[in-house]
């Protein structure tokens, strides 16, 4: 049985699909790496409107009961 050689158009289409696939995987990897870097750096995760929330600040003195 003789197979016909595929048309050149399929090669171009494949190159496009492969390129987009690699780019997407690369983008996801970069997002993951960026997230890891930003989260592990220790910037305050909760600090809305330039006001620190008491729950996020370390406890420096004992809370006295009334």
């Amino acid at each position, binding site marked *: 049985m003789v197979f016909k050689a595929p048309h050149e*158009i399929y090669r171009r289409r494949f*190159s496009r699909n492969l390129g987009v696939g690699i780019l997407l995987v690369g983008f996801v990897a970069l997002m993951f790496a960026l997230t890891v*870097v930003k989260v592990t750096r220790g910037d305050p995760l909760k600090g809305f409107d330039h006001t620190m929330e008491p729950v996020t600040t370390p406890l420096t003195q004992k809370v006295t009961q009334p």
Partner: protein
Amino acid sequence: MADIALNDTAPEPGFGDYVQLLKPRVMSLVVFTALVGLLVAPVPLHPVEAFAAILFIALGAGASGALNMWWDADIDAVMKRTMSRPIPAGRIEGGEALGLGLALSGISVVMLWLATNWVAAALLAFTIFFYAVVYSMGLKRLTPQNIVIGGAAGAFPPMIGWVCATGSVSIEAVLMFAIIFMWTPPHFWALALFMKEDYHKAGVPMLTVTHGRKSTRAHILAYTLALVPVCIWAALTSIGGPFTLAVAVVLNAIFVKGAVDIWRRDEVVSEADKYAVEKRVFRFSLLYLFLQFGAFLIEAALKSYGLGGW
């Protein structure tokens, strides 16, 4: 039979055609200058953030390249140098280039913001706007000063790189911008001198067409002379040092010598040796920018060993 039917439909571009749409050669210059701007900044950036920043600056430059190719497809089809670009060659439809350009513009600006800071992202957005709208749509076909104004877009990357690291613009960033801004006119006008038929055919008001070639030669010399103090000043700031200053003096001396050579020649002499001097100065101008920015980088490396800097 199905193959024949497929050929009659819309063009089927390969991945390389899209890459070509982003002007990879311009992108390589953008990557290099932005990287220098980022690395010579006094604030270190995490390698992953730095990589992301350079990537998205390059992507923004590519986006403006795609928008430029979409708008200038009619000019590109006429000029010998550009007629094999994807749109005039019929490999990609104009609308597709517009879509890609707009999408990549948005992605690059937002991602640069997330990766670094909003000032850098705003500068990148302005650069894309400046190149695609102000230069390509506005001034390129209107004024022979198009190269001067368009050069500003190409001058922004090192400033964006600096801002990615520091979060603000400073004199060093402005001077790196100014070096590329002043370098662009002599670089492109030297090219225009030996590519004359092309711009003339396309009707783009290049200085060579509107003011004549003698005036263009004088302009090359004027801008090259104006470039000298900018480079020397940059070498005297915090990103410079004795090494950078020495490199700047040597490079500018050679560049000015080349510009004087171009200025002294006339068309008869140039035609006789097929624009040998103009071509030599054009090639040197590329090397000039590479070495000038490379010197900043080496100076920064020396500083980390306690050797360079003032």
